[in-house]
């Protein structure tokens, strides 16, 4: 499992940032399969801890911050030329960036990609880090499990909001898409309901902020219900072909359709009656 983690991770890193390979391999060495499994169930306790703002969480968070974040964001999160200030970004931003592996960034480029989590990134550590950043200047907090429960949202209403606000960049089914200057809208399939919510309230990277006065928390839950529902849907028409529309359909029509028809044409014409030579 660890071996697999190394190869996948190093491929991704090499493709994007050849110089950062060593750093990412080091992160991957610490990757354990149980990290993902452990992340989900403990979220509610993390939320509670952040909300109550336990002082020891803040202290622990500060030491984590100094170890993993301060080189770019500054020792007191005041920001440097390498990274912006984190005063006021809130716990939601920390939870989104760190739990999706985007932060700590492998290198400061146009956009930090989602990547496997480092060994130290436990739900506990994320909660402590979030508590520390929250203590600096407030900001959006991590949503409760109830706020992001897809079962409690209205998918049809969420779909309308999703089409009006998200698909310009993320595509009708959240398959993602290209943006300018090396940025891109990521595929929404790996995002947890919490991360989708946090992305809307914090506006990470190229994404705009959709705060509660633009889209209410209930509407956000509706959208999460739609996104999660559609991505779990079994395509009724067969293979979804990446669900990116006519581009992959056209490729299939030519590569599968016309190739097949050419081969059968060759096969049919090859069947000849014996002919006497002239």
């Amino acid at each position, binding site marked *: 499992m660890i071996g697999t983690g190394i190869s996948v991770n190093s491929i991704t890193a090499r493709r*994007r940032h050849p110089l950062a390979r060593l750093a990412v391999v080091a992160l991957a060495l610490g990757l354990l399969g149980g990290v993902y499994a452990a992340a989900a169930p403990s979220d509610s306790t993390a939320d509670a801890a952040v909300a109550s703002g336990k002082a020891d969480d803040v202290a622990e968070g500060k030491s984590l911050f100094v170890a993993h974040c301060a080189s770019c964001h500054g020792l007191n999160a005041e920001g440097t030329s390498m990274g912006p200030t984190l005063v006021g970004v809130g716990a939601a931003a920390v939870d989104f960036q760190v739990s999706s592996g985007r932060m700590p960034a492998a290198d400061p480029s146009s956009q930090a990609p989602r990547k496997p989590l480092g060994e130290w990134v436990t739900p506990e550590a994320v909660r402590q880090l979030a508590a520390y950043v929250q203590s600096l200047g407030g900001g959006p907090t991590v949503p409760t499990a109830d706020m992001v429960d897809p079962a409690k949202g209205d*998918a*049809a*209403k969420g*779909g*309308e909001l999703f*089409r*009006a606000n998200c*698909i*310009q*960049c*993320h*595509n*009708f089914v959240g398959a*993602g*898409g*290209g*943006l*300018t*200057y*090396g940025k*891109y*809208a990521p595929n929404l399939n790996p995002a947890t309901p919490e991360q989708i919510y946090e992305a809307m309230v914090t506006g990470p990277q190229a994404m705009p902020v959709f705060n509660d006065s633009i889209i209410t928390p209930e509407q956000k839950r509706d959208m999460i219900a*739609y996104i999660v*529902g*559609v991505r779990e*849907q079994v*395509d*009724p*028409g*067969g*293979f*979804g*072909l990446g*669900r*990116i*529309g*006519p*581009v992959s*359909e*056209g490729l*299939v*029509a*030519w590569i*599968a*359709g*016309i190739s*097949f*028809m*050419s081969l*059968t*044409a*060759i096969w*049919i*014409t*090859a*069947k000849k*009656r014996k002919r006497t*030579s*002239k």
Partner: protein
Amino acid sequence: MNETPKPIAGTATYLDDRLGAGSFLKRNLRKVFPDHWSFLLGEIALYSFIILLLTGTFLTFWFKPSMQHVIYDGSYQPLVGVGMSEAYASTLHISFEVRGGLLIRQIHHWAALLFVAGMTVHMLRVFFTGAYRKPRELNWIIGVLLLTLALAEGLTGYSLPDDLLSGAGLRITEGVAISLPIVGTYITFFLFGGEYPGEDVISRFYSLHILLIPGILLALISAHMVLMWVQKHTQMPGPGRTEHNVVGAPFYPAFMAKAGAYFLFTFAAVAGLGTFAQINPIWLFGPYTPADISAGSQPDWYMGFLEGALRLMPSWEINFLDHTVPLSVLIPALVPMGIIMTGLAVYPFAEQWITGDRREHHLVDRPRNAPVRTSIGMAGVTFYGILWLLGANDWISAYFHIGLYETTIIGRFAIFLGPALAYWITYRICIGLQRKDQDILSHGVESGVIKRLPHGEYIEVHTPLAEDLADHVRGKKEIPIVDGDEDKDGIPPKGVRNPIGKLRAKASKFYGTDHVPLDGHGHNGHGNGHGDGHGDDHAAVGAGDKPRELH
């Protein structure tokens, strides 16, 4: 041996006396069709069209071409309660509630993609083999019309479900119409029955899509087939094949069996795709709202080159007397399509004018033997291909991590440099292949047998090319050249004295000059190693063929 049973003989005679079917069939059932796999490619389009007519009829039973606003209350949960047009709702109904509806919808759509793709490969075959030459120019024009109409048929077809993706295409259609100088607004209001999107366009497209365009398509396809039947199919050069015969299998039974089998293969292809590959999942796109647009909105493949042209175009516009001429929309909408379709339509006539070739051609060219035509064709394919590719530049950017703007900038250069490069490369390949033909004809093919001669020299025995293949290669015909040479008094012949005539003579020489005559060895600095006593053994190993210069 046996007598025909009386009921059959009687009926046959009755019909024969009244319809004259017997002699007609006797004449036509034995009609000979030449055999080459590429001659079947057009049938992909023909059979797809038949499948389109049948599946399309099925879809009309449930489709409601209405833009009446309804609230969805069907079985697809994520859209329940959402406002949409009746057209969209009825397409959802076909997809999720009509038995077999989704399958037929998908077969219809896949068949449409294959219909245009089949036309395209058929057209490329006809172009590159010169099968459009006299007497088939008019049938070629019919073909160009069919292709153009197929694009219109496709656009009106995929717009019908009134989903968010096709709505983007409709919006571009409106943008093109309204960008036409002077008449733009009138045309747009006429087409949409008022402000975009209005409430009329779907029902109007419906009439066009199921009645008018398929009617014209059917008529033109029939004319295309009848002309092909009457003029006889072209054939590849080969043993016993001349300009005055057709070598192949009779329509009945051999060709009919093959054509029937090919229909079944076409059906298998579209039915297989319709079963296993999801196409146009309109429930994922959502109903059309003019305010919404999705990333990665592309049209079906055959419109992709127009999409690419639009994406490639700089934002030029002319402002004149408070009127705007948006070149950024007009040029990509009209120019590439104009170049491609007009170019195709006039090509046979332009070629005839340049070469002065008024002969009938029933034997086709191998592409290498008409290098200028083949190179022009490949330049056209490259032009189309680059536009087509850039229609998907956002996916290229997202999947291959290339900046979006970089794809556009590279495309703006590639659209001019690519065709030129393709022309040059193709030309070199054609000349190279001609040389190979010449080589094989004069030296034969390597047999793999190494022989030691009495004086110690080793040679590889070359055997002459098999006779049918040699006939195929020898089928090369010289391209005529308009005589533009001055006579002994320095006066050029009539017709090439004016500038246009001079240009024609020049173009003709360029187009028709045969750089590598088939039996041309000996007069191009080549031929050592021959006639020095090897007899039938042909070329000696290392006979020192010097590279020949192109003159």
